[in-house]
């Protein structure tokens, strides 16, 4: 292994600036003469806007302007677009309502934007915002899937009858029906996937900065994908061509999917900046984040598994209702469809699968991606169902899984729900995980717990996920309205240092370290002589950003392809310098040598020759040493693994404590094992959060009850054990790095392992139905027979 190269546990380069408070987040940026924006948000879930009286606010000293939806409409501002279209079973397109950045006629959730105040200070903006008098005619609302589905329910949108955005299906219905008809036994389950709020540590922020001299705009924003924001906002909302709009997403403090979406505030500050010809800054406070960041999950499903008498899976039938919120968020429609139902095969050879998904509008915050986005919902449903099947058939849960696993020799494996898995070895992960978890001695630990009055349970999940949606043409056929490639530029500077421009975006993932490791591996340059530039459309040629665990598998491969071009050109230059044939040049550890001789030239000297081309093959080769690659993958990558959780339940109170957690994952080849461990720790913690603590709750009138950390329970350090993690490697077969992706796996595999463990702990209590989060009261009630 090269020092600091591929596979080394290099410490994160970027952490020094974060730990010492020198990061530059959007709110750290201040532009000369900037104004502060305060958004006036709807306090009600549904209502007609009769009148917005801004006079008192405008009269306030220090207030520069107050704008309403009517002002934006008058300027011809477009609606926030949706980036994914879904077609219903009957061939009709999804209902796609308009989404003005500031609502002009009607508000549709608590937090919906109505007006914006621009003032000299944040305090004045806040005071003035309270003087904006909005007269609403309140209308009846639907706050959840149940009320939205009721007969005669109030409609969020008049043209979405029954509040249905689309009614979609995947798989072969008749084959699945036939499988059930021939089945010896059927297991059914009803599953709620609880609604979550991402709660990135950095609240969203945006600064619009219009330069009247050049007629150019700059938007600083907390985004996971600045080029996508430039495309969506420039083309669809504000009609600004790309060359006049620069989007910068500098250091960003966590996203978890909630910072993929194009948000109204980005368009509002950009548009307003031109209106007042001054920079306009908006920073959400935490309360605002709760009611304006896209929420995640929120499914209600019924599933049935048909089996032979021996426990072979014959067919799977799933019916899901998914809450999309009041408007379509950027990738909202893709989450409960393409990113969900395509994963329902899991790691099993179920021959027939049919799933239908009804996506519903409600008067709540729009729902979009949250760590895993669709895949945790699929994995949770399937792994709960499989565990229930094990209980019902009396087959050991690990044995039942093994019996149905897709085997190594089955790859590539075409599932009945569109995906083709390239590679994997699911049992290898199970073997590693059960050994690390000391699964064999669980009974002994259960007795120890019992001696302390605790009920101990163990739960397992064998998940699969799909990373790096691809290829673009297939994604397009499935409804994507953008490409899903990635871009990497390698700029070798004259003295041999390297600047990488990547379309991936790090908001915690550590690309400044892992991508530098790829450069070290390929070019043999010193780790400290590599800089990774990301998050700026003014610097990076193009990019689709970071989400869906795609950075290494797509962005990393694009970078690797650009590095390969650099290596090729460097060899040509070296061949000239060494007066040898290009074919005889070997490039290793930063030296280019003539094979079988002691003649060599350092990579740095090759770089210098490229920029000072005095001794250079100018007739056949351009000067300079900079290459770009666009990489569009042939397929998704398919990480998989086995999670084993042990819990202790306090029978007096119902409190669940996770006491052991083991993850055996297959992420393909690993660039930096320390960073991968950290990703697994974080993902599993969020999965434990979903399983035991987190729950976004609206009351019947659409008011958010969990609007602060006092009521929305994030997992804390004492809620999680030390994690035991291990990996098993089956390299991805269709990318040059052999990598798959690791960012979301923890959140995908863990919730079902946790709940299966809780149910196992309660095995003497005849509880087979328990929804997330398994709060102490829920568990206690279930133990009382009130589940």
């Amino acid at each position, binding site marked *: 292994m090269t020092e600091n190269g591929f596979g080394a546990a290099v410490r994160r380069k970027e952490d020094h600036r974060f730990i010492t408070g020198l990061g530059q987040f959007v709110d750290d940026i201040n532009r000369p003469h900037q104004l502060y924006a305060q958004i006036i948000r709807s306090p009600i879930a549904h209502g007609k806007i009769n009148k917005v009286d801004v006079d008192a606010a405008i009269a306030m000293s220090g207030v520069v302007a107050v704008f309403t939806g009517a002002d934006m409409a008058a300027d011809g501002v477009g609606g926030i677009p949706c980036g994914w279209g879904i077609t219903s079973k009957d061939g009709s397109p999804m209902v796609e309502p308009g989404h003005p950045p500031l609502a002009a006629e009607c508000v549709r959730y608590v937090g919906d934007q109505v007006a914006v105040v621009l003032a000299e200070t944040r305090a004045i903006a806040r005071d003035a915002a*309270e003087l904006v008098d909005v007269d609403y005619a309140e209308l009846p609302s639907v706050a959840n899937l149940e009320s939205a589905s009721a007969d005669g329910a109030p409609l969020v949108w008049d043209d979405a009858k029954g509040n249905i955005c689309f009614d979609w299906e995947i798989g072969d219905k008749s084959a699945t029906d036939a499988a059930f008809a021939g089945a010896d036994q059927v297991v059914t389950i009803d599953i709620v996937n609880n609604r979550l709020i991402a709660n990135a540590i950095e609240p969203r922020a945006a600064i619009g900065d219009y330069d009247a001299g050049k007629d150019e705009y700059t938007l600083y924003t907390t985004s996971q994908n600045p080029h996508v924001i430039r495309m969506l906002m420039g083309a669809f909302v504000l009609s600004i061509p790309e060359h006049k709009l620069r989007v910068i997403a500098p250091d960003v403090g966590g996203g978890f999917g909630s910072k993929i979406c194009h948000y109204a505030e980005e368009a509002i500050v950009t548009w307003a900046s031109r209106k007042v010809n001054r920079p306009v800054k908006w920073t959400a406070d935490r309360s605002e984040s709760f009611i304006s960041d896209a929420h995640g999950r929120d499914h209600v499903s019924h599933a049935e598994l048909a089996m032979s008498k021996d426990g072979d899976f014959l067919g799977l039938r799933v019916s899901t209702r998914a809450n999309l919120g009041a408007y379509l968020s950027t990738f909202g429609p893709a989450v409960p469809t393409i990113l969900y139902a395509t994963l329902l095969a899991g790691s099993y050879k179920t021959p027939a699968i049919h799933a239908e998904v009804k996506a519903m509008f409600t008067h709540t915050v729009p729902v979009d991606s949250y760590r895993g986005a669709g895949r945790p919902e699929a994995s949770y449903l399937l792994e709960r169902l499989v565990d229930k099947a094990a209980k019902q058939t009396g087959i050991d849960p690990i044995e039942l899984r093994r019996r149905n696993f897709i085997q190594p020799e089955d790859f590539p494996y075409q599932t009945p729900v569109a995906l083709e898995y390239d590679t994997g070895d699911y049992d290898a992960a199970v073997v590693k995980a059960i050994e690390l978890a000391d699964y064999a001695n669980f009974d002994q630990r259960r007795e120890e717990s019992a001696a302390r009055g605790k009920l101990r349970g163990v739960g397992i999940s064998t998940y699969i996920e799909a990373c790096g949606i691809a290829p673009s043409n297939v994604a397009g056929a499935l409804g994507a309205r953008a490409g899903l490639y990635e871009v990497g530029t390698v700029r070798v500077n004259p003295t041999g240092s390297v600047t990488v421009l990547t379309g991936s975006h790090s908001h915690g993932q550590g690309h400044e370290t892992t991508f530098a490791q790829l450069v070290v591996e390929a070019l043999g340059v010193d780790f400290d002589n590599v800089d990774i530039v990301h998050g700026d459309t003014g610097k990076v040629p193009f990019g689709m950003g970071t989400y869906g665990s795609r950075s290494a598998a797509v962005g990393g491969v694009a970078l690797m392809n650009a590095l390969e071009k650099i290596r090729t050109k460097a060899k040509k230059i070296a061949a000239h310098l060494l007066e040898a044939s290009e074919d005889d040049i070997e490039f290793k550890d930063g030296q280019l040598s003539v094979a079988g001789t002691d003649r060599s030239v350092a990579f740095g000297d090759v770089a210098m020759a490229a920029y000072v081309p005095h001794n250079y093959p100018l007739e056949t080769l351009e000067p300079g040493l900079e290459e770009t690659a666009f990489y569009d993958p042939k397929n998704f990558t398919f990480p998989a693994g086995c999670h084993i959780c042990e819990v202790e339940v306090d029978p007096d109170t119902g409190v669940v404590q996770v006491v052991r957690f083991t993850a055996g994952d297959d992420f393909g080849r690993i660039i930096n094992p320390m960073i991968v461990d950290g990703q697994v720790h974080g993902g599993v913690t969020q999965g434990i959060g979903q399983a035991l603590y987190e729950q976004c*709750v609206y009351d019947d009138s659409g008011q958010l*009850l969990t609007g602060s950390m006092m009521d929305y329970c994030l997992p804390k350090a004492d809620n999680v054990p030390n994690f035991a993690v291990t990996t098993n490697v089956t390299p991805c077969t269709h990318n040059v790095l052999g990598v798959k992706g690791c960012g979301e796996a923890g959140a995908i595999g863990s919730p079902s392992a946790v709940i299966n463990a809780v149910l196992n702990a309660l095995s003497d209590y005849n509880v087979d139905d328990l929804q997330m989060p398994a709060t102490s009261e829920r568990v206690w009630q279930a133990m009382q027979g009130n589940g």
Partner: protein
Amino acid sequence: MYEFNYHRPTSLDEARKILGDNDEAKLLAGGMTLLPTMKMRLASPSDLVDLSNIEGLADISDSGDAIEIGAMVCHAEVAASDVVRAAIPALSDLADSIGDAQVRNRGTIGGSVANSDPAADYPAAVLGLNAVVKTDRREISADDYFKALFETALEPGEIVISVRFAKPERAAYSKFPNPASRYAVVGVMVAETAEGIRVAVTGAAACAYRVTAMEDALSKDFSAGALEGIAVDAADLLSDLHASAEYRAHLVGVMARRAVRQLIA
């Protein structure tokens, strides 16, 4: 936060004068409830009277049969105090269980007792240990102090000076924390005092209260078993997102038994 005037008087007289001159003035102790409420714009006092510079409000003293904790003593100091630990370890433990480290370093016993949040921990100690709340004008016994939701016997402008805890024979506090906020969903203080057994509950109802049926049972037989079968009426208990009244009623029994077991162990 709205604009307000900030005062930092050096004497109680000065504090009282500012309070008297401004109808909308509020006392500021640790500010762990008041400041977030102001930041959320749910409170808008015209004046804040910060008590942190008044001498004599932040002492912990031992008078032999009782300890007295100044109103401005923060939770972390109570938790770390050798005087408190030697006299009433249950009180040290209770203070150490409040909120998080930041809250314990800012929040004060006087602020907590004056605010009487239904989910605060100190009210269980004040009532369970039969403490005396000493103000700038009188002494109020615990049984007369807690009135209703965020309501105490304090009169407008009355300033808590200290809380005096007689040393109990033994006492234990058992808490069921809210997993999100770490406030008490239910907290029970069980104490054997000179006046008898006391069982005080916080978190479950609008304000701290005593469970006399449990006190009577423990007076006859001080064991966890003596509490079995004593039904806690859910009718008057709080019910919210975090716990139904039924669950709270159940937890009162569980926490009381755990406190008793701690004392017997």
